[in-house]
């Protein structure tokens, strides 16, 4: 005897899904004696284009980009120590600014909620990151540059 317990109708009415699960567990518990295995189906998010039609790879590419920039920054560290100069200063400025921009972006994504607040926070971040990059380039051009600055600071 197949017992079809559909909680879909319950869910449509906006019932707390946790309660539904507990309710379901109770049902299953009652039928435990029958020792019938149950097939559970669940609704999940998928991003396959055949279903949603909006299979954007933007988030995935962003993730990969973040890791690539991190690895580049790791490489620039020793390079800055062994070959200081403008050839390292400007890539260092760009990589630092981008790594910081994306990093703070993740922090904002975690803690800021609500469409307008998210938008405001991200706009402010974008301005800050632009100013940071501009300032670092200005320092590289009009002053001693990042590598030399660290060297001077450390040798004082």
């Amino acid at each position, binding site marked *: 005897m197949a017992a079809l317990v559909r909680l879909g109708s319950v869910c449509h009415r906006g019932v707390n899904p946790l309660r539904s699960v507990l309710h379901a567990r109770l049902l299953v518990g009652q039928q435990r004696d*029958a020792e019938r*295995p149950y*097939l*559970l189906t669940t609704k999940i998010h998928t991003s*396959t284009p055949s279903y949603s039609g909006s299979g954007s790879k933007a988030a995935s590419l962003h993730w990969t980009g973040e890791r690539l920039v991190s690895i580049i920054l790791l490489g620039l560290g020793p390079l800055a120590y062994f070959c200081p100069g403008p050839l390292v200063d400007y890539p260092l400025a760009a990589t630092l600014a981008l790594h910081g921009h994306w990093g703070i972006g993740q922090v904002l994504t975690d803690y800021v909620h609500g469409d307008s607040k998210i938008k405001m926070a991200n706009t402010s971040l974008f301005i800050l990151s632009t100013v940071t990059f501009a300032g670092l380039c200005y320092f590289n051009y009009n002053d001693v540059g990042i590598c030399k600055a660290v060297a001077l600071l450390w040798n004082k």
Partner: protein
Amino acid sequence: MCVVYRSMARPGFHASRSQFGVLYRHAVPMGTTAKEEMNKFWDKNNRLNRPMSPHITIYRWSIPMVMSITFRGTGVGLSGGISLFAVAAMVLPGNYPQYLDLIHSLSFGPQFLAFTKFALAFPVSYHTLNGIRHLMWDVGKGFQIPDVYRSGYVVMALSVLTSIGLACL
């Protein structure tokens, strides 16, 4: 999440998992995006003025937890410091060596200087080393709990040692 239960009437049927295991063969995609679902969650909970469940005030702190938030803290701190430096470079008069001479003239003791160098080097070394640990996770290595703790201890020890080494330079 809506859950549909179905029982198999055929005798002798064995589920490959436990009685309550989920077989994702029967997964059905939802019509909303994850972002929409997240917004719905926050809208509903804010509208109903629900208090946030206590989390960091009651949950026992663990090494991975502390290291994770320190990683974030050092990242935010370093980023803020770099932004501050960049703005200062554009706004403040004079050039960098002049400000260094100013600090020189204040004649701090050698221990204070070494300590300051350590304080500057530690966030960089910790963030870099834990960053490498994160990249290892990103390629799928080191997820077993003993490995998480082991790599964590290595990062912490190396951070301190590296910072001391850099401070002595």
